[in-house]
């Protein structure tokens, strides 16, 4: 067996176990360092993922695939975990007895995401999914002093169980239709005329729809989005950030592989399902975001809308569509992490996250206000921030394929979204704060904010290198 294919996962699991051990060995009073160790370890893992990732190899007879697509997603997850670990230093400062577990759970969840992006088989898919979700549930309920956090954890565990049940039912139907768990065999069986989309075999169609529903829950697409606002609001802010960027991206990683390589989506009934999910997410997410007064809830609805935009890349189901999706995922990562880092820099560690607490931020911390501004503009899709190009790539590809109405709708909803992002910016710049004192931004948060803002502007002004990379990946995996 070629263990180089799972090198990154092995190292990540080792990091998780070592973090647990550090919490047990380290003398009381020196446990502060666990968070720094975690951040450094994730940075090392990221370096490994770029320098020696074990390219193009597979494991377990092709059940686990380390292709360029999986590798791209893994790098995104590790970056997210690194930034979230940095962001968590402040939240975990008060947790003397359970600090190492926080970072260990983060690392375990990361392993799950990496397995999920590499899964080429229903079993590895499901194991990755649960390995990602179960630590996230515990992390969501980590703020034991807050009733909201406990409530969020309870909701998350119940709803995850339901979505897992739906997903498993769908996978079992696909298994019944094809007689295999491996993606290649399932795809080959479904491509036969008896199961093809044209004949509309009910078993394959229902199985495919239920599998889609299971992952629509993970990416929080309407109508499977109900959990996300409550959970983003209740969860500790760094965990909400990890849910928003990590869990959602992992959902897209699995969904992309399923739609491109397993389910017969092109022209079949399933593409209609994906279009509906996308349209509903864009419309409902953006419209409900308008009246929100809590920043974390606003971000939850905005992330629902962004799931809708990203689904456009899967609707297009072409090289350009996949490349646009990958580009969007990177810019979404930096913009969201930046905003969550800003929320977590507030005095209460971002527990409330009311938009009103951002009043007069321009005077209280110009640096934080500026970075927040860049990230919000990117999500709104205003140049020169990267969000503009991301949306442009997605809409251009959808329009090129003749779905003009879909591109027009996305454009319209994007205009609607500008109004709520701008209203947050208005609060930051125009409104006066009661308390004009300066905010002391922790150094880790400063670093994340600077990196997010730089990356957001950088990707918008110099999109060349990343675009070339995503296009190369799309060309390598889609033939």
């Amino acid at each position, binding site marked *: 067996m070629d263990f180089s294919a799972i090198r990154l996962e092995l190292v990540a699991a080792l990091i998780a*176990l070592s973090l*647990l*051990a550090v919490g*047990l060995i380290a003398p009381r009073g020196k446990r502060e360092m666990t968070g720094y160790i975690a951040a450094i370890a994730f940075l090392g893992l990221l370096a490994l993922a770029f320098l020696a990732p074990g390219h193009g190899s597979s494991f377990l007879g092709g059940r686990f695939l380390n292709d360029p697509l999986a590798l791209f997603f893994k790098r995104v997850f590790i970056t997210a975990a690194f930034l979230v670990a940095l962001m968590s230093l402040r939240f975990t400062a008060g947790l003397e007895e359970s600090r190492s577990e926080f970072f260990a759970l983060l690392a375990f969840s990361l392993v799950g995401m990496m397995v999920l992006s590499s899964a080429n088989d229903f079993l590895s898919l499901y194991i990755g999914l649960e390995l990602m979700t179960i630590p996230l549930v515990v992390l969501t309920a980590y703020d034991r002093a807050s009733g909201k956090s406990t409530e969020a954890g309870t909701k998350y565990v119940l709803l995850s169980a339901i979505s897992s049940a739906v997903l498993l039912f769908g996978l079992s139907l696909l298994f019944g239709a094809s007689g295999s768990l491996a993606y290649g065999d399932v795809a080959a069986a479904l491509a036969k005329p008896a199961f093809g989309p044209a004949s509309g075999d009910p078993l394959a169609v229902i199985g495919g729809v239920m599998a889609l529903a299971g992952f629509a829950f993970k990416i929080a697409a309407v109508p499977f989005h109900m959990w996300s606002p409550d959970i983003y609001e209740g969860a500790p802010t760094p965990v909400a950030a990890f849910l928003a960027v990590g869990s959602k991206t992992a959902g897209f990683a699995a969904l992309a592989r399923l739609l491109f390589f397993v389910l017969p989506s092109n022209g079949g009934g399933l593409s209609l399902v994906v279009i509906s999910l996308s349209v509903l997410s864009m419309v409902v997410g953006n419209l409900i975001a308008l009246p929100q007064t809590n920043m974390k809830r606003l971000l939850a609805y905005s992330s629902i809308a962004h799931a809708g935009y990203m689904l456009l890349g899967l609707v297009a189901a072409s090289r350009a569509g996949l490349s646009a999706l990958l580009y969007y995922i990177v810019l979404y990562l930096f913009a969201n992490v930046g905003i969550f880092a800003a929320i977590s820099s507030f005095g209460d560690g971002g527990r409330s996250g009311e938009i009103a607490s951002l009043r007069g931020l321009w005077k209280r911390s110009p640096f934080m206000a500026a970075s927040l501004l860049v990230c919000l503009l990117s999500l709104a899709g205003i140049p020169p921030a990267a969000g503009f190009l991301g949306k442009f790539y997605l809409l251009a590809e959808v329009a090129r394929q003749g779905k003009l109405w879909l591109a027009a709708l996305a454009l319209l909803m994007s205009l609607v979204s500008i109004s709520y992002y701008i209203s947050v910016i208005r609060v930051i710049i125009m409104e006066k704060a009661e308390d004009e004192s300066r905010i002391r931004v922790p150094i880790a948060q400063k670093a994340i904010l600077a990196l997010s803002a730089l990356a957001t502007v950088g990707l918008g002004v110099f999109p060349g290198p990343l675009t070339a990379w995503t296009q190369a990946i799309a060309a390598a995996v889609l033939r």
Partner: protein
Amino acid sequence: MSTGYLPLVIFAAGGMLFALVVLATNWLFRPRHGGREKERTYECGLDTEGQTWIQFKIGYYLYALVFVVFDVETVFLFPWALTFKASGMVSFAEMAIFIAVLAMGIWYAWRKGAFEWN
């Protein structure tokens, strides 16, 4: 659709019907005497003490969890031990890693005081 599943369907339907018939017969012929004594909470033949909606000691939960660690370990050790001679050093190394990971869990539970009962 295969017709080979028909006996299974008949079997499932028969099973459900049997349960329904038994329950219905009971319901039809049993004597009905209500009363306070009959509706009381029953626990192992003893009268319950106080409220039944009490919080259980978290220690039970921890014990059950640690037990599962040992339990799963044994479940995997038995088949491995039976095929040990055939599977060789690779499987020995794999089992060693597996047990090391579990040992890590037990060590963690130990240091966190899961084995102490106060």
